[in-house]
């Protein structure tokens, strides 16, 4: 704002940097009018009027804006009734309704804003006035007087002099202060081991996610690099309403088919399922392995699978897990591999779980590794 090279010594003009105001036009609108005509709230010396002609022009322009705003507002009311609620159910018509309503509303609002601005700039006089900031701080006398009054009152009340009363009052406040916190206790259950158990158990079949169709091993047979997202098949007496969002949020799995030669050393690591210890590879079936689909970082579904590299990628924060190597983290912010679900096949050829996950699924939490 300081580089406004306002040319103040106007007598020897023509030299002027391009873009600076010329001297013949005053920077502030209007010509100061003779003082005797002035009747505004501030001294005339500070006030710059618009001439009567300018004011009249301003009035006209502002009125045009206000009329446009009026038309916009009327248009808005008309647009509302132009469509029935049934019509806007069609997304295309709904879009038109939205544009008409919004467009007319915009016109109406903009017209009022523009009209008011023209009013302020062209009709009103322009002036700047000064006014003092408050003195800070208070004078010593005021402060002293306040302090004396306060202390006299405090002494009179006996709050300082009578400790028994003061301390018992404070004591009385303590349980009341705790009450609102205690009242929040029933907002939810204690964690217990809820985050560590899922509906998966030995012998439970699985549904293809979003259907009620059991997964068979052959479903992945035709595609040596296939991937299926699956949920536990729960339709027994424990789950009368089917699987809940809570249960599906923690039990959803990725079934991935892997050619035998692609397994890596991580698969030889021993894991324990229901007391039985065996290498990870033993808990797969025919090259099919099951991992939790929920990322161990902050819980998005790690739903992207790149078949050629066996990488599972979470699209939220790009944690990347190697499906051929016990779902170890190969990149990104997650720290813990995706838990593996031990699987097998039942007599009828359906894939089943052979126990729960090897570790709690979902975001890592404080005591996930504790039993």
């Amino acid at each position, binding site marked *: 704002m300081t580089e406004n090279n306002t040319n103040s010594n106007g007598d020897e003009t023509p030299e002027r940097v391009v873009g600076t105001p010329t001297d013949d036009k005053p920077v502030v609108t209007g010509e100061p009018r003779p003082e005797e005509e002035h009747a505004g709230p501030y001294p005339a010396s500070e006030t710059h009027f618009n001439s009567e002609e300018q004011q009249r022009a301003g009035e006209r322009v502002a009125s045009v804006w206000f009329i446009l705003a009026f038309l916009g507002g009327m248009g808005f009311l008309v647009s509302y009734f132009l469509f029935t609620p049934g019509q806007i159910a069609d997304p295309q018509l709904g879009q038109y309704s939205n544009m008409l*309503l919004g467009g007319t509303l915009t016109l109406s609002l903009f017209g009022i804003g523009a009209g008011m601005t023209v009013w302020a700039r062209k009709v009103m006089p322009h002036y700047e006035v000064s006014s003092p900031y408050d003195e800070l701080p208070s004078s010593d006398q005021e402060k002293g007087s306040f302090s004396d009054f306060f202390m006299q009152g405090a002494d009179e009340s006996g709050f300082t002099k009578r400790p028994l009363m003061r301390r018992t009052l404070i004591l009385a406040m303590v349980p009341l202060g705790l009450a609102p916190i205690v009242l929040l206790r029933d907002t939810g259950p204690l964690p217990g081991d809820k985050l560590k158990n899922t509906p998966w158990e030995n012998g439970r079949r699985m549904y293809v996610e979003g259907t009620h169709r059991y997964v068979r091993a052959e479903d992945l047979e035709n595609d040596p690099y296939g991937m299926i997202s699956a949920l536990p098949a729960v339709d027994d007496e424990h789950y009368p309403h089917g699987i809940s969002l809570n249960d599906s949020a923690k039990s959803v799995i990725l079934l991935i088919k892997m050619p035998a030669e692609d397994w890596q050393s991580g698969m030889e690591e021993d894991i324990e399922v229901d007391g039985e210890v065996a290498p990870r590879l033993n808990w797969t079936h025919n090259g099919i392995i099951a991992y939790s689909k929920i990322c161990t970082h902050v819980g998005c579904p790690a739903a992207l699978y790149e078949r050629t590299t066996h990488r599972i990628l979470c699209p939220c924060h790009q944690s990347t897990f190697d499906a051929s190597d016990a779902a170890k983290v190969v990149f990104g912010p997650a720290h813990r591999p995706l838990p593996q679900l031990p699987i097998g096949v039942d007599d009828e050829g359906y894939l089943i779980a052979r126990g729960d996950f090897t570790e709690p699924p979902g975001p*890592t939490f404080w005591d996930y590794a504790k039993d």
Partner: protein
Amino acid sequence: MSKTTQAPKALRGVGNFIDDRFHAAKMGEKNLRKVFPNHWSFMLGEIALYSFIILLVTGVFLTLWFKPSMMEVVYDGPYERLNGVVMSEAYASTLHIDFAVRGGFLVRQIHHWAALIFVASLVVHMLRVFFTGAFRKPREINWIIGVVIFTLAMLEGLFGYSLPDDLPSGMGVRILQGVMLALPLVGTYISMFLFGGEFPGEDIITRLYMLHVLAIPALLLGLIVAHFMILWHQKHTQYPGPGKTDKTVVGTPMFPGFAVKAGGFFFFTFAVTAGLSAFVQINPIHLFGPFTPTSITSGLQPDWYMGFMEGSLRIFPNWFDFQIFGYAVPIGVLVPGLIVPGIIFGGLGAWPFLEQWITGDKEAHNVADRPRNAPVRTAVGVAGITFYGILWLAGSNDIISETFSISLYVTTYIFRVLAIVGPIIAFIVAKRICLGLQRRDRETLEHGYESGIIQQLPSGEFIEVHKRNSEETTEVLASKPEITSTALTEPETDDKGVKNPEARKAKGRLRRALAEWYTKDNVSLAGVEPHSGHHLHHSDEVVKEHASH
């Protein structure tokens, strides 16, 4: 302009009615005469205020139909494409607002756009206050209120974004819950209590709704009123210029000029918001489908003000995660989830006091600094913006990777490096620019401004004629304060040769070092007389001096 009209009878009646009960005439006139300094940057906070009003009005409208319930329903409604789909009542009622309530779609979009504009204008307003030092005494408390408003506005926006229960919004809640679980010891408890059990449970939308429409808006409203009353009482800061001092404020009075201009500006703000909502679609939840915890789409982006959190979650590596006695401490979630926002918001809140401690400046300031005249503060601010901006960009690294065909992992590495190196470079560059501008100011003050006129001297040499600055420019340039610190001016030893005990302690030494850092490279105006430079005069003497160069 004829003579003043007398107040109409009806108005006098109302005025007397009120005055009989409140004795309001004197106070009323004082407030009508309240002075508002003029500068475009003072309108940024106004945009935030007006957006907040738009949010309140449109929000009330939306509550008439929105059902904050996670009860599962099979959709059978006007939006045919989703008929038969299982969804929460929250999502179904949002579809109802969009496709069965005339103007509902528009108001929902105005609400969303106004939220984005609210946070954006609030941030830019805050940057203006920071860079001009308008947070200095006596306005530190109002600054802190502003920082709290910023924090609450972000939460308010996040919770509002979560209410429709569409796929991306549910994923935002999931990430929030994942970050909560990472808290040592208490994480699982907080999550269980907030969600009424496991994720997603059946309560979270109802609870977020209460926070979004009642608790946080009430707090925001209270804080905004306090912010405004403090501002009203202390009056605005103003930029340096003739007659503008720490004792006197210069500007347009509230009535009639400012009131009409501000009123018009409210309508402009609303018009822009409405125009965006009419023609630029935002958050089309009907295209995303209802939330399920098992599905996701790629390229998910949060609202802009959450981008920096998303970015820091993406780029912070897992190298520092550890276990202690078998308990997990996921540093890779805790740092981006808590420490990064802690540094940003805590740093903002603490800065006025830190700066005061470094400089020892206990004076009240009503004239704002020009950013260049406080180079270290400006450079710290620019470094902060850079840090925030890089995290924000990192929040869309998948889109950057796809758009520019860069490997996804490479973008992560680039952002990791930039998040550390970027702010340092930004600090150095911004400070150098400030110092350069200060030197140019000093030169302009001494020599006048470059007129653009080339003059040929008798010797054949060409010079550019410098001309006198306007009085205002001179005043502004000469107003540059010296950057000093009492830590450097206090004598290290007293008159008996005993070392100042304060300066000897670690805290004193730290303060001295910081003061050194804050004040060095000061471009002093000491000894500079306005228009004393030789370029101004056209006399032969000067020409000769020129020729001898």
